[in-house]
């Protein structure tokens, strides 16, 4: 791939994935400003990868992997405790959602945030960002089977919670 081809590829990735990536970052941070910064930083790193001459096999998986790591870094810098400690304490990303979006969005986010993190991430990436299980496995470093289990169980839990909420 020559210089021009790489630039064209980068532009097409930006065009194709910017919205989804921003949405992913926003769902994790609940701040449009932070999500925009993270989106920008992600694409900068993708550019760096191209600059280094590395071949990018699956751009979408790479983009989400970088973004995921940046989000973790963002929380690490922001919070004194590790993410694991925060999770153990029941604190989830995006829980303190600011009313920057519609009520329906905040309601939806609130429901999905009740899922355990591993299920939430798998369900979100599969059905909102429409990534394939193989890509999610690549992003999270898990096997495809583990991801498939998480997707299925996550959806079962989500359904159970909605039904429970409806009954109450």
């Amino acid at each position: 791939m020559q210089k021009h081809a790489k630039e064209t590829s980068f532009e097409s990735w930006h065009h194709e994935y910017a919205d989804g990536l921003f949405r992913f970052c926003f769902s994790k941070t609940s701040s449009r400003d932070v999500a925009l910064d993270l989106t920008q930083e992600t694409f900068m790193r993708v550019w760096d990868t191209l600059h280094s001459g590395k071949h990018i096999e699956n751009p979408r998986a790479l983009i989400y992997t970088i973004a995921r790591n940046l989000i973790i870094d963002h929380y690490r810098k922001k919070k004194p405790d590790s993410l694991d400690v925060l999770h153990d304490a029941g604190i989830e990303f995006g829980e303190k959602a600011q009313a920057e979006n519609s009520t329906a969005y905040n309601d939806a986010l609130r429901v999905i945030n009740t899922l355990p993190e591993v299920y939430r991430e798998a369900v979100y990436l599969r059905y909102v960002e429409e990534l394939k299980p193989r890509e999610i496995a690549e992003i999270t470093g898990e096997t495809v089977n583990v991801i498939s289990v998480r997707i299925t169980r996550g959806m079962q839990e989500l359904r159970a919670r909605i039904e429970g909420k409806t009954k109450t």
Partner: protein
Amino acid sequence: MKNEQDILNTLKNVTLTAEERSLLHTRLGEYRALKPLPENVTLPGRMRSPFSVFDFGRSMPALASFFILVFVGGGVAQAAERAVPGDLLYPVKTAVNEEVRVAFAGSPEAQADVEAWRAERRLEEAQQLAVKESLTEERKDRLEENFDAHALRVEERIALISENDPVLATELASRFEASLTAHEAILASLETEKTESVKEKVRSRLAKIGEAKRYASVSLRKSSDDSPNTRMFAAEVSLKTAAPEVEVAQFSLMAETDSEDDVSASATLPPTEDTTRYAAAAERMRSAAKDALEKTGKIYQEKRAVLSSEQQRRVELQLATARDRFSEAERMLQDGFSSEAFFEFERVLFSMNTLNVLLNNDTSRIDPPRLRIIEIEETHDDNDEPETYENEESRF
């Protein structure tokens, strides 16, 4: 908030505003201007040959000179086709000849074909070097790396095709799987430890391509069903990739049979959307299997003279078995067992593609091992389970 699908759809509503998009575009533009890509970009992994003369720091001029050489030198490109790692013309083979084919492969199907072809060529090169006892560790590592990269791209293209045309995806996966199976047998027949790690790579890819094929089968189930439950089904079935028999059980439901006892009943059921779709899918697989049967028959006639009488007997037996299977699958299709017929046709396709690769192998170099390969194939065939519809499917 009605159900989980509504919730997930609601989450999709967030997008960049025009202002945010513009800001992002401007900032990234500035960053790119500050850090432009180097002009003299070396060929990335998928194009760079490990044995390339380009490795000596003359990438672009060397590339240009090779192109000139090809255009001026007439038969150079053709001569390079026989090159193996270590030969002077090997870089022409990989970085010129093959890249030209890549450049002309527009559709995902063509791309999958080209990448499969390249992966197979790397295996053939490993075989040839092993026979010549010049498969050094370095060459082997590079060949494995390149094989892996091409095979990965085949899987990606198949995954892409699965979304829109699962039958074609199954066919492509089956073809590649057959080729890898044949090459694995050839490598095993070489009886040298040097190719052990190559075989491992092939096995690992075989597992992946098998998964891609199963995924395509699942996509076939959901191809005309875009209801919210469809995605759930896909997730549930993909979960079963580690236990193919469970998936096949699910898959066989498409013939509208609830249990093995009900197999005969399905023929009397009125056609449903599923059965109609499967009949169409089986018809397409039938066509592919028929082509493969005819092609293999022709190749056999061409190669017959160089085969020993024992080898001829074995190949003819395989061809006859495949023809019987094909006829059986046609009967299944006529009787309304579309999903079973689909799998049976696919099996014929697989066996014929495997035989194709074996027949096209260079007999002059590895003739004795080939005899063993054909023995392996025949034994494998003889050891198959009884030909009940259920057992045929359990392969998946």
